C-alpha cells in the first residue's frame, strides 16, 4: 500500500491520536525563503497516544504494521521548542512502511512508553531517553544503555555542552 492508502485506512479506523500528515513538496516559486521538502511522507501523532496508535497499526489487518523497525528522536534546532520522536514501522505481510512523528515539548519531555506494544521498543526508548532527556512513563527498565549511569546532560540535544572532564579524564 502507498502512503495515501495507509493514511486513508488510518482515518477509516480512527487511529488514536492521529493529528495530520506531511508530504514532500517542491519549493514554492513565489516564496524565495521556502526550501520545499524532500524525502519521505510521514504522519503526526499525539505523543500521549503513541502506544495506542502503534497498537492500532499493528492489530488492524489492512495496515498490519507488525514490526517496529526504529524509534528515535530528533532535536531539529536550538530554537525549536519541540523534540520529534520518530518511529518507523514496517509491514511484512503488505510490504509497506510508515513513519510516525510526535512533537514533544522540550520543557516537558515526557510521554508514555511503547514497550508494552512492541517489546523491541524497550531498548530504543532507553537510548532515546539518555540521549535526548525524554522520560518514557511506565518503561520497565529505565536505565542508561550506551552511556554510563552518571553521565550528565543529553548529548544529542542541540544545546548540549561538551564536558571538560569525566572522572578525572580530560575531554579537551
Amino acid at each position, binding site marked *: 500500500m502507498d502512503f495515501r492508502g495507509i493514511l486513508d485506512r488510518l482515518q477509516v479506523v480512527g487511529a488514536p491520536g492521529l493529528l495530520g500528515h506531511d508530504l514532500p513538496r517542491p519549493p514554492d516559486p513565489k516564496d524565495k525563503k521556502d526550501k520545499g521538502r524532500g*524525502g519521505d511522507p510521514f504522519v503526526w501523532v499525539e505523543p500521549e497516544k503513541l502506544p495506542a496508535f502503534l497498537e492500532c497499526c499493528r492489530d488492524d489487518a489492512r495496515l498490519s504494521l507488525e*514490526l517496529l523497525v526504529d524509534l*528515535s528522536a530528533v532535536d531539529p534546532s536550538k530554537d525549536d521548542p519541540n523534540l520529534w520522536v520518530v518511529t*518507523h514501522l514496517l509491514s511484512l505481510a503488505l510490504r509497506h512502511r510508515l513513519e510516525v512523528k510526535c512533537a514533544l515539548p522540550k520543557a516537558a519531555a515526557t510521554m508514555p512508553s511503547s514497550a508494552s506494544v*512492541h517489546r*523491541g521498543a524497550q531498548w530504543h526508548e532507553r537510548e532515546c531517553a539518555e540521549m535526548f532527556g525524554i522520560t518514557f512513563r511506565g518503561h520497565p527498565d529505565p536505565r*542508561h544503555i550506551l552511556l554510563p549511569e552518571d553521565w550528565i546532560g543529553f548529548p544529542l540535544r542541540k544545546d548540549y555542552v561538551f564536558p571538560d572532564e569525566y572522572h578525572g579524564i580530560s575531554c579537551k
Partner: protein
Amino acid sequence: MVETKDAQRTTADPGKREFMLDVRTQDMEVNMGPQHPATHGVMRILVRADGEVCTGAQPHLGYLHRCAEKIGENVEWLQYLPYTDRYDYLAAMNNNLGYSMAVEKLMGIEIPRRAMMIRTICAELNRIGSHLIAFGTYGLDIGAFTPFLYMFREREWMMALFEKICGARLTYSYIRIGGVFNDAPPGWLSEVERFCDVFEEKWHEYVDLLMVNHIFVQRTANIGVIPRAMALDFGLTGPMLRGSGVDWDLRRDMPYELYVEIWKSGCFQIPLGKGERGTLGDCWDRSYVRVMEMMESIQIVRWCLGSIASGPVIADIPKTIRVPNGEAYAGIENPRGELGHYVVSDGGKVAIRCRVRGPSFTNLAVLEEILPGALIADTIAIIGSTDIVVGETDR
C-alpha cells in the same frame, strides 16, 4: 530453588532438566565480559546462574560507544562516510551503501548502472565475508577450531579483492554518495568470477565440516528457540528473523537498486529456517540460513558479472554536498538484518540528524528473553548465534 523451577518451565524440553532439582544450589551472578571471547567484542552480559542453569541475563553495552550519531551532526555529508565503516566493521561495504542510499534518496540523484553493478558485487561479497566470520567464530565459540581457519582462507581472498579495488581491507569507504569511488581495476571482475568458482567448491566443505556435523547439531539444535511471534515483537531482522521461519528479505520484498531485476531473473532464493534438525527458530536454523545465504550471494554476484554495463561509476555531484531540506529513511539488507539510516537535513552542509538503526542492537535485545532457562554452556552457543557486532550495537 524457586528460581530453578521457574527456569525449567521456560526450557524447551523440561523433562530432560529433571536432574537439576535434587542439586542444592544458590543464585550466583557472573559477569561474562567485557573481555570474553564469546561476546565478539567489548560487551558484558550479567548472567544470573543457579547451578548450571541461567536464570537471568542482562546485556550491558556502551563500551564501544563512539558517538557516531553525534559526529554525523558535526561533519559534512561526505565526511561522515568513513564513520559508517566503523560500526559494522565486518560489513563495511553494506554500511557505506546504506548511508549513501539515504543521502541519495534525499538528494534525488540517479546512480549510473555500472556503479550499481559494482556496488551490488561488493555488498554481496562483503555479505559472504561477514557470514564466513559469523559461522566460523560460531564454530570457534563452541569448540570447533578447524572450520574457522578454513573460512578465514576464503575471507582472506575476499579482502584481497577489496584491497585491489579500493586499497583498504576492512574499512573501505568505497561506495560513495552518487556511485563508487573508482572503477574496478583491469582483471578485477574476472578474478571475482574465479573467486565465485572456487568458493562454490569450498562451500561444501563448510557444510560437511560444521553445518551437518553431528556434534555441531547436538550443540545448537533445540536451544535458543525464538518463535515467530517473539521475533516480530522484538523487531528482529535478517537471519535472526528468517531463522524463525519468517519469509522476509528486503532484497526481494522492498527491492532497492538492482535487486528488482536480480530477483525477477530468478537467480537467487531466500533461505528460511525450517526446524530441520530441531525446533523452528533454534540456533541451528539461524546458522543454516547464514550458510545457505552465502551461496545465494554468489549467484547474485554471478548475475552482476554476466550483465555488467559499461559507463561512468559515479554520478556528477559537487565536492561539497548540500542536501535539500527534508528527511529520508533508507533500509537495506545488511548481513545481520535491516540497516536503516534516517537522515534529516535543513538544506545545509551538515546533517540535522543522522540516525543509524543497527540490526545488531535490536537483535541483541532478544537475549534477555531467550537466555533464561538455558544451561550455562548453551548461553555461549546462543550468544554466538545472534551474530552481533559490538561496534554496531554501541555505534
